[in-house]
Every structure is written in structure tokens, then in C-alpha cells.
């Protein structure tokens, strides 16, 4: 199918993008890599009247180390995340996103703003305790990734706000594990384990509408419990959604195994 007609604005700055969105009065959309938005438009699941192309705004792409964290510009392509060496967990996770042609265009900001429950980067964001920077008509604000995701494909971003940067803390130990039917498919379940400032955080994706912290597992680990005990405790706490890709029981079992693998890869055994 073809997209419905829209006005196309190529923004030269974040200010211009935000102003254009404000003027569109809720009927505008940012166009970043287009790897999620264009399918939605082609299937006519959305028909915004204005698309604001942010691809040519200078200074929005790149991975910059800063103290115990890295700053990732919203326009950083998935392929650049795979190639960079400052944040190995991000590189590990980005390798799992789609296929080469998807990674060449899809962006970090787009993936996080799109908030697909089975996407990799939102889980890394929650797993490491990332902070996002958001620009709006009234200036910029920052919020924790955990407060950004409010539902499947839903975030706290207002219609005239643009995500400009994500700050991912650099874990001292980390592990990423994913189960997908085929390479390049969205994950059925994935787990991130990250030791940040001496505390082990565990996050899961594909389990519910938003990435979730496996708090039971974190508590077991903090109390000196074993990896297996942590994974088992997490599984018990979960109430995964069932769909045609897997029953709740299956997802719970896979989640426990992915947590065990992520923790093992993090060297936390």
C-alpha cells in the first residue's frame, strides 16, 4: 500500500522541528530512520498531515563518552551503535536489531521513541538506568527511561516534543541475551544484566507492554543468592502476555533462561 498524502518539512534544527510539530497541532510526526514509521504509514495505521524529517539536523548523531556514561545522539544509526566500542553492551544489543539494511537507517532515538515492547534499545535503557533528553516548545527536560515508557508504543513524550539524546550509564559488568525465532526477528524475550555503581540491575523485554525490571532477581542477587535462584525468583514474579508466538508458560521459562544467560555473560556467577 501507499502512504496517504502529507506535507514534508525538512527541519534544519531541533527548534524548527519542535516549532513545526507545535504548529501541526497534534497531527505532525517526526521522520527519523523511517524503519517503523513508514510501514505504519504504508499500512495506513496512521495518516499524519505533516512529517518533520530530522535526518539533516546537524550534531544529532554520535556516541560520546562522558564520565561513567555515554551520550548517544537521537540520530545515531543502529549500525553505528554496533561499530562503536565505548559502550559494549549497546553494541551487543544493537547487533540483534533487524537486518543490515534496517540497522543502516534506523536510529537510536527512533527506536526509543517508538517504544516497541520487543525492541532492544528500550530494554538496554531501562536495564542501565538511562536518562533521555527531550526538547519541546518550552525548552528541554530530562527524564529517566523507566518513566518514559508508559505502554506498548506509548511514551511520556508530548506530540510537540522531540527526543534529542540518551545518556546510557556504562556498566562495570554486563550481559545481553535474546531469544528470537529467526535472526533479525523481533525478540520473543530478551534480558539485560548490568552492574551500575555497584548494583546489579536486570531488565526484560518482550514480557509485557514496556521493558520491566526483574526486581525479584535483583533482590536475590543483592542478598548473595545464586544465578539460578535469581532467575527462578524472576520467573515466579512474571505474568507474561500470551500470543500466537508463545504461551505465558513458555515465555516465563524462556525469560528465566535469558536472565541466567545474561547474568552468566556478565560474569556474575
Amino acid at each position, binding site marked *: 500500500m501507499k502512504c496517504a498524502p502529507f506535507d514534508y518539512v525538512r527541519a534544519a534544527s531541533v527548534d524548527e522541528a519542535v516549532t513545526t510539530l507545535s504548529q501541526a497541532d497534534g497531527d505532525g510526526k517526526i521522520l527519523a530512520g523511517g524503519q517503523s514509521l513508514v510501514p505504519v504509514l504504508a499500512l495506513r495505521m496512521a495518516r499524519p498531515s505533516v512529517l518533520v524529517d530530522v535526518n539533516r539536523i546537524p550534531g544529532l548523531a554520535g556516541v560520546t563518552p562522558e564520565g561513567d556514561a555515554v551520550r548517544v545522539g537521537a540520530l545515531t544509526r543502529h549500525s553505528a551503535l554496533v561499530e562503536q566500542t565505548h559502550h559494549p553492551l549497546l553494541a551487543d544489543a544493537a547487533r540483534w536489531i533487524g537486518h543490515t539494511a534496517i540497522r*543502516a537507517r534506523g536510529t537510536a532515538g527512533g527506536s526509543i521513541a517508538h517504544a516497541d515492547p520487543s525492541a532492544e534499545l528500550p530494554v538496554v535503557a531501562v536495564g542501565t538506568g538511562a536518562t533521555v533528553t527531550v526538547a519541546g516548545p518550552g525548552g528541554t527536560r530530562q527524564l529517566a527511561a523507566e518513566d518514559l515508557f508508559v505502554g506498548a508504543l506509548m511514551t511520556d513524550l508530548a506530540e510537540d516534543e522531540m527526543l534529542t539524546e540518551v545518556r546510557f550509564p556504562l556498566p562495570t559488568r554486563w550481559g545481553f541475551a535474546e531469544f528470537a525465532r529467526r535472526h533479525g526477528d523481533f525478540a520473543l524475550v530478551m534480558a539485560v544484566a548490568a552492574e551500575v555503581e555497584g548494583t546489579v540491575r536486570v531488565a526484560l523485554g518482550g514480557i509485557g507492554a514496556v521493558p520491566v525490571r526483574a526486581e525479584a532477581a535483583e533482590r536475590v542477587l543483592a542478598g548473595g543468592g545464586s544465578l539460578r535462584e535469581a532467575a527462578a525468583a524472576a520467573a515466579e514474579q512474571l505474568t507474561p502476555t500470551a500470543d500466537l508466538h508463545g504461551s505465558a508458560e513458555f515465555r516465563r521459562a524462556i525469560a528465566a533462561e535469558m536472565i541466567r544467560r545474561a547474568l552468566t555473560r556478565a560474569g556474575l556467577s
Partner: protein
Amino acid sequence: MDITFSVNGERVHLDVEPRHTLADALREECGLTGTHLGCEHGVCGACTVLVDGQPARACLMFAVQADGATVTTVEGLAGEDGELHPLQEAFVAHHGLQCGFCTPGMLISALHLLETDPEPDRETIRTEMSGNICRCTGYSGIVDAVEAAAGVLREPGPAS
């Protein structure tokens, strides 16, 4: 909207509607129907082209976004005289195609793969080509062809 870009070495000026994808512009405005449209929402890979050297789904990019870019389509593979590219020769020789619908996307993905990794093993070929769906061949012939073409392209031949 007026745009200018280069396709297979030729400069093109077009006046396109913003909602027209790069695939639409290539097929309908430039007459380059080698770029196939299977799903039109990013999953099949038939429309894969190179944009500034990087693989892209031509169905997920609007033509207006290609303004100023350098695009390579399957038509850009063969030589001026019609001589097939070693990848195309290998697809013929190793049964890398049956109906040919997926082939343009397969060739472009393979071209990019061999530009970034001249000596991929079979597992790498399978992984890197996983974004291209083929309903006919069962993929073995495609993997054989890419492997064979990699060998040919590595040979020190006469400079072309």
C-alpha cells in the same frame, strides 16, 4: 518537490510528491523497474538499493529524502557493454534464482556484504542476507552464489 540525485552514475532531476517512496521514483519516474516491490513495508528486502553506499529499503525511504544522494540499483551492476557482474554470473551458475523476484534485492545485499567483508563464511552470508526473503530457491543456491562470487572478486584480475 524538486529533487536531484544520482542513480547508477547518472544525475536525475525529478518533481515528486512527498509521499512517493524512493522505490516509486526509481520505478515510475526513472524507468528502473529492476528494483522490485514485494511487501512495501520493509520485511521482504526485494526493494533493497544502496544509498550513499549503505543498503536501504527503497520502500521505507521517501524520494524527497534522497535529494543529493548517490543511489545504486541492480541496473548499476552490469558493465556498460552489458557484461554481467561476477555476482550476477554466480547467481546464474549456482541456481541463485528461479522466478527472479527477490534477485535484485539479493544482489544489492550481497554486493554490500562483499564490499564490507570480502571473505565471508557461509554462516555470515546467511546472517547478512537474512533480511531478504526468497520464496523459490530454498536459499542454498543463493549462499553458494555469494560464496563463489566472493572467490572470483578476490582473485587479482586485470584492472577493469
